[in-house]
């Protein structure tokens, strides 16, 4: 059997890797998406004081540390049975909205845009952020840098540091914000709302205005039907910080709605010996292997899944674009993997609008942002929607609040099975018997991957949010016949 592996750096650690086996006819027999590293947070958090976990677990991922910080802060609230004051919750959500803005801006411009703005089969040397700036212009490039920096700055002011913030602790936040800080945030939020509109316009002009791209997005090879999971508020609108977890099937029908603390009843994790990453699945449907369809417990998370499970967006501009997306792509749910990029921009709009709302909330500068916990600590679950999907932190402690057990289901982990299936499907479509596999074809495989914005740092509890990839192709004798490197530009 021929085998194809996608990996940029031979034998190099910590990178996603795809091994593709071909049969004697030269068609794809099977494909394995593998994650070669584990970091063991679940073990080494044991013995630590639980209130320290919001400062330890963000080191799972320096690209979305804010998500871990928030999930962990909520989990330690639950461990101590304490409900933070309203201003603390709002301040956390404000912080977190800024975090989502930073992450979605970085992903769209540095990771996704090179494919669409520069072109999926363009010269790899130009298929990067610098190529994007070339196309959109240096002024627009500066806007990207400026607005991402604004989002980082808001997190830094609240959390001490933008990356690995320290503000969340059991019962609330370490400090309130001043009126002067609020004013600064409000200005930045206005800019981010406008910048989100501008980003959506770029997507309309450069992607949706190009028939070739639209055909690619809506075509069968980038379609992946599965269950979807995401967090919704009381009105079933997308919410990143708090709410119930809702699961819909491939027809869009609700199959579950549960509280964060009930997640163990709904989610199981399957282990394969060829990857360090586990495959989460819906327990009520069961693990049926890496197969598509209603009988398979595989589900998707992240922007498109969140929009598919929700009834809409809670802010006007985002809602308008939400309706536009479903009208254009033929109603809910949308199964087009590449529509993930559109969904991400809709979420960017929502995050910016929500950020502005919170900056203008009369309670946001209330100095009362802490409740000192008094109950005996025992166990708690904290869930948020990370930029890349639903994130679960679950801690159990002794009566002194020392960690006994930790369970983590991270955003990208949820999508592992779906990513594997998507990539296999694209590989089957692009690798044909007797046909040379070139760089452009490989980039199509990688685009499926990139759409999910897989964060392997998170997933292995190891690497940043962009993925260098190695494709190794094996023939039917098991010999390596081709080894192609591919790098997802930041």
């Amino acid at each position, binding site marked *: *059997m021929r085998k194809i592996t996608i990996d940029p*750096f*031979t034998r*190099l*650690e*910590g990178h996603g890797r795809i*091994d593709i*086996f071909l049969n004697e006819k030269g068609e794809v*027999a*099977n494909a394995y998406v*593998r994650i070669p590293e*584990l970091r*063991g947070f*679940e*073990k*080494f958090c*044991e*013995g*630590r004081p639980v*209130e*320290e976990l919001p*400062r*330890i677990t*963000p*080191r799972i*991922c*320096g*690209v979305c*540390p804010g998500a871990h910080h928030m999930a962990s802060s909520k989990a330690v609230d639950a461990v101590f049975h304490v409900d933070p004051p309203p201003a603390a919750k709002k301040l956390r959500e404000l912080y977190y909205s800024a975090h989502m803005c930073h992450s979605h801006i970085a992903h769209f411009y540095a990771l996704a845009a090179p494919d669409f703005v520069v072109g999926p089969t363009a010269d*790899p040397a130009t*298929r990067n*952020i610098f190529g994007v700036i070339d196309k959109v212009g240096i002024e627009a490039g500066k806007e990207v840098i400026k607005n991402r920096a604004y989002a980082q700055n808001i997190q830094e002011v*609240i*959390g*001490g*540091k933008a*990356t690995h913030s*320290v*503000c969340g*602790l059991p019962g609330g936040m*370490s*400090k309130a914000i001043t009126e002067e800080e609020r004013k600064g945030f409000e200005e930045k939020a206005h800019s981010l709302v406008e910048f989100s509109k501008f980003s959506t316009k770029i997507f309309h002009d450069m992607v949706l205005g190009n028939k070739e791209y639209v055909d690619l997005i809506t075509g069968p090879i980038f379609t992946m039907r599965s269950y979807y999971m995401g967090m919704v508020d009381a009105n079933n609108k997308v919410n990143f910080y708090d709410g119930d977890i809702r699961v819909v099937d491939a027809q869009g029908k609700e199959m579950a709605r549960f509280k964060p603390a009930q*997640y163990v009843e709904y*989610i199981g*994790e399957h*282990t394969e*010996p*060829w990857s360090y990453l586990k495959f989460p699945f819906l327990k009520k449907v069961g693990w049926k292997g890496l197969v598509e369809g209603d009988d398979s417990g595989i589900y998707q998370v992240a922007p498109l899944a969140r929009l598919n499970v929700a009834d809409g967006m809670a802010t006007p501009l985002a809602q308008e674009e939400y309706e536009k997306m479903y009208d254009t792509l033929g109603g809910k749910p949308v199964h087009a993997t590449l529509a993930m990029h559109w969904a991400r921009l809709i979420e960017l709009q929502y995050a910016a609008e929500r950020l502005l709302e919170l900056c203008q909330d009369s309670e946001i500068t209330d100095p009362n942002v802490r409740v*000192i916990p008094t109950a005996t600590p025992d166990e708690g679950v904290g869930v948020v929607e990370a930029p890349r999907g639903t994130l679960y932190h679950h801690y159990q402690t002794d009566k002194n609040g020392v960690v006994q*057990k930790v*369970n983590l289901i991270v955003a990208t982990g949820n999508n592992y099975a779906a990513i594997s299936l998507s990539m296999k499907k694209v590989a089957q479509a692009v690798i044909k018997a007797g046909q040379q596999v070139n760089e452009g074809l490989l980039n199509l495989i990688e685009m499926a991957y990139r759409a999910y914005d897989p964060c392997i*740092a998170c997933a292995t509890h*190891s*690497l*940043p*949010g962009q993925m260098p990839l190695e494709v190794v192709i094996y023939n039917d004798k*098991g010999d390596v016949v081709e080894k192609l490197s591919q*790098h997802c*530009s*930041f």
Partner: protein
Amino acid sequence: MAKLKLAAYWSASCGGCDVAILDIAERVLDVIAIADIVFWPVATDFKYKDVEAMANKSIDVCLFNGAVRNSEQEHIAKLLRAKSKAMVAYGSCACFGGIPALGNFNCRAETFQRAYIEALTNVNTDHVFPQTLVKVPEGELELPEYWDTVLALNQVVALEYFLPGCPPPVELTNKVVDALASGQLPPVGTTIASDKSLCEECDRIKEDKKITRIYRPHEITPDPEHCLLEQGIICMGPATRGGCGQRCIKANMPCRGCFGPPPKVIDQGAKMLSALTSIYEADDEEAIARMLAEVVDPAGTFNRFVMSTSMLQRKRL
């Protein structure tokens, strides 16, 4: 002047150090004006084989972030060492092991047992563990081996500079940019940070007060103007190098020591223990016992970022 050649690399890390480089924002454009980035997997498309093809010492400066926990990471650390004139341990993981080195309190078998068997959501009745070599119907698949012990970068290769922080602050990264632009690199062995302890730099009011009780951070709302340690909260300031900009302290949270020990201090944990015993009013055995009981997880707190380079280094295997 010929353009400088720069490289950056991540190893066992979270990606936060790469984000920290991006956080110098528009100064990235200054860097590109004076230097070619010849290898930075996060942002550029150059390959591993390109590095192998380079002449020895052809990279002027390499910023290496992340700890080292397997043979592949060791291999690339050694390769980049050979190709670079100056190598910087960038960030706390490369400098001291960082948070991943808390794994040195356990071993591989324990970590696997937890991750693949015990975790509540596992459905793994056949007790499947990841294997370094697996036969699948179509052929064989390999995985790299997971080490028991996490190492800091200078435990694998010799280094010219250290830039600590989790993540390194923008101001210190900019110092590197300034040094590159001026061509004035600091003496070999320099830690690009302050030569004082964080305590000496701290803006909070100190009154040389003794304490009689230790509070955990969630048990008390500390006054934002006064020394956290004198309010009974364990703050690693006395045992930690300064230069961070007091980032955590300004957020009204105690230091956890990500800058490692100050100059001339060999062991950060021992230094902190000494600082704590001198501020805690404990004249009899009962008070000493009380103090010890109040410090939950001393090893993991006093060595939060430095397990690899601490005197403890790891739990005995």
